[in-house]
């Protein structure tokens, strides 16, 4: 199997009080006034959406039917310790209609599939809770 590019997200950013980000297709156009947890909100939304796709893929691989209502509430902290910034994440996952052990297995497996989980693996603290 060779590597295959699926899509590329392109954005243009400017900083400062009137700063913002705009995607090349114009569908994403957000103001990013500093200081505001905008970057962390964007990361929370990006990771959650991709992670939910990974849960669906994990369910399909295991032939588990996922009823509607899958949801992820993400909390991304920006921290400062001894002058250094770092992130910490909590993902609170709701998998209604799936037995708890089965749901736990799905959310664990999803971290090995989701490219955002893999991108931060070992570098930041991530707590995933089945709610």
């Amino acid at each position, binding site marked *: 199997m060779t590597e295959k590019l699926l899509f590329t997200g392109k954005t243009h950013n400017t900083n400062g009080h009137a*700063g913002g980000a705009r995607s090349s297709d114009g*569908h994403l156009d957000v103001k990013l006034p500093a200081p505001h947890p905008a970057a962390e909100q964007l990361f929370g939304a990006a990771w959650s959406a991709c992670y939910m796709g990974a849960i669906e893929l994990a369910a399909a691989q295991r032939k588990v039917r996922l009823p509607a209502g899958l949801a992820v509430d993400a909390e991304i902290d920006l921290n400062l310790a001894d002058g250094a910034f770092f992130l910490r994440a909590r993902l609170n996952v709701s998998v209604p209609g799936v037995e708890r052990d089965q749901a736990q297995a799905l959310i664990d497996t999803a971290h090995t599939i989701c490219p955002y989980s893999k*991108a931060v693996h070992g570098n930041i603290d991530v707590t995933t809770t089945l709610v």
Partner: protein
Amino acid sequence: MNHFVGVLHTAKTETTGDRDDGTSRSSDGLLDIRLSAPGSARIGTSPDQLFAAGWSASFANAIALAACKRNIALTAKVRIDAEVDLALGFGGYLLTTRLNVRLPGVERNVARNLVDGAEKICPYSKATRGNIAVTIKLT
């Protein structure tokens, strides 16, 4: 060693549906977006665009901080064009990133020094270090 740990802020988002048909909203309501697969008829953004925007915004702050530490005045706004690829490789799905940085009015070797400094302090660069391919270019 992290002797003192202070949380500066916490971003809270609620996401339902996936990258092809989801919606995501922040607890303060300032982020409220629809997700869609690129090229589909549904109007919406993608996780990769969101991540590109978030990382760039944070990286711009890191450049400003690096400049401040070196007593370098940035006279014009930092501009970053980011590209985040979602790819499928041997080990499954993976991300690759390119940040194209423009620092108007800053001499090239000074700009390189600032970008290198920013890469060490940006929390998104740190969070992904060693796990994904990142190319940072001065344009």
